[in-house]
C-alpha cells in the first residue's frame, strides 16, 4: 500500500527516496513565477561549489605537504578513459538533481 501524501511513510525507504517524493514539493513563497525553484537550484549549486572548494583546498594542502605534485602538473592534466567516465556520471547526477529542483 502506498503511503498517504504528507504522512509518515511506514515502509522502509532511504532518505533520498523520501526527499524526492512528490508530497515534499516546495510551496510558492516568491511572487515571480518559478523563482522559488530557481532559489533552490542556485543554493544547491552553491553547496556543490562550496564542497568542491573544500575538496580542492584539501588536495592542495596535502600535495603541498608531501611534495607529491605541483600546480603546473594540475594545469596540464588529461583524464584517462575511466576517469572521464566517472566525471560524466557525476555530471549526469548533478543535472538530474538540478532538473528536479526546476521541475
Amino acid at each position, binding site marked *: 500500500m502506498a503511503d498517504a501524501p*504528507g*504522512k*509518515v*511513510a*511506514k*515502509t*522502509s*525507504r*532511504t*532518505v*533520498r527516496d*523520501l*526527499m524526492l517524493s512528490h508530497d*515534499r514539493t*516546495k*510551496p510558492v*513563497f*516568491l*511572487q515571480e513565477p518559478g*523563482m*522559488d525553484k530557481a*532559489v*533552490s537550484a542556485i*543554493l*544547491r549549486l*552553491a*553547496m556543490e561549489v*562550496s*564542497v568542491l572548494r*573544500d*575538496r580542492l583546498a*584539501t588536495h592542495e594542502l596535502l600535495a603541498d605537504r608531501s611534495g607529491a605534485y605541483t600546480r603546473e602538473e594540475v594545469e596540464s592534466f588529461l583524464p584517462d578513459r575511466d576517469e572521464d567516465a566517472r566525471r560524466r556520471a557525476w555530471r549526469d547526477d548533478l543535472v538530474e538533481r538540478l532538473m528536479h529542483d526546476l521541475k
Partner: protein
Amino acid sequence: MAQRLESLYRPTHDEAARHGFVGALKRHVNGPMEHTLSAHYDALLASGGGVEQSGVRLQDERLFRLWASVLYTSQDLMWESLGETVDRLNPLYVERWRDLAGRREKLGSLQLDPSLTIPEPIASCEMHRQPGGYCHAADQDNLTAPLAYFSAADLYLSAKGFGLGQAAGTPAMCHLILAAARRKRPGLAPTCVLDMGCGPGTETIGYRMAFPNAEMHGVDLAAPFLKFAHLWAEHQGQAIHYRHANAADTRYPAGKFDLIVSHILFHETSGEMLPQILREAHRLLAPGGVLLNADVPYQTLTQSVPKRITNAWQVDHNGEPFWIGFADTDVRQALIEAGFEPEEVFAEYVPLGSGRYFIFGAAKKDG
C-alpha cells in the same frame, strides 16, 4: 575488535563539506537575514504603519518571501545532505543493532510496545520536515529516523545560536539542565532518574555519567529512537533502561524517581498532552524530587513582533506544529494545576550560546 559505534558516524570529506555549507546557509538565514527583517519591521512601524499593519506588510515584502524561500530550501538541503550520510551508514548501524538484539548479557534494557498508541504530532507529522518523521519504518530493523535526528541536532541548534559545537552524539544540553537542577537542589544526588522524550538517548547518557550510582531510565514514543538509544548506551558501557511509552502514562510506580528531566519535549507535544505529562511527572516524583525541563525560549509575550511572525512561519511551513501552542502556555500555572505547590514552581531563562534557553519545572514538597 569491531570499530567503536561512535566512530562509525563519520561523514565523508564531501558529506562533511555539504553539512558545513548547510550550516553556513542556516546561520545566515537565522542571523543576518532575520535581523534585516526586524530592521524592516521597525522602519514600517516608524513610518506610522501600526503594529498589526506593519506585521502584515512585512510578510508581503520581497525580503520576507526570499527569507522563507531560502529557509525552506536550507531545510531540504540539510535533510538531503545528512540523508546521504544516513543512507550510507544505516546498514552498518542496523547490523550492530541485530548483533545487540541477539546478545544475552546487557547492562540496561529496552522494552518496546508494538501496541502503544502514538499520539499526534509524532504519529504522522514529519517533525522539522525530517523525511519519514520520528517513527519511520518503526516495526522494521531501520535506524534512519534516529540517525537523521542525531546528525541534525547539533547543526540545527548551532545555526540558531543554541549549539555547543560538539561532535554529533556528544551529551551537551544535559549539562545546562544539570546545572539548573543543582541550583535548585545543591548537592543533588538522585538515586533514580527519568529522561522524558529521551529521543536517541544521547543526552540520557550524560545524566547517567553525571550520576553513575543512580538508576537511569528513558521513555519515548518513537521505537526507532529507542532502539538507537539502547544500542548507543550499551556500546558506551552505560546501564540505561529504555521504555517505549507515552510520558503522560509511563506505567512506572508512583514516587519512583527523584529527578525527572526533559529536553525539547514540550514544544513538540499538543496542548492536551502537556498537562497530562506534568501530572504524570508529579505522580512519579518522590517527595523532595525535582522536575526540570529545558525548551525553546520563544514564549510569545517575550518575543518581538518580527520574531513572532517568523516563528509562526516555522509552524506553518517547517514542521513545528506545537511551537506556538507551547510558547503561549503558562507553564507555571500548568505545573500548579498538575499538583505542585506554587512556591516550588519555577520558569526562567538561562544564557546559552549567543542567546538564552527556557528552563521550567518544580520541586515536589518533602514529606
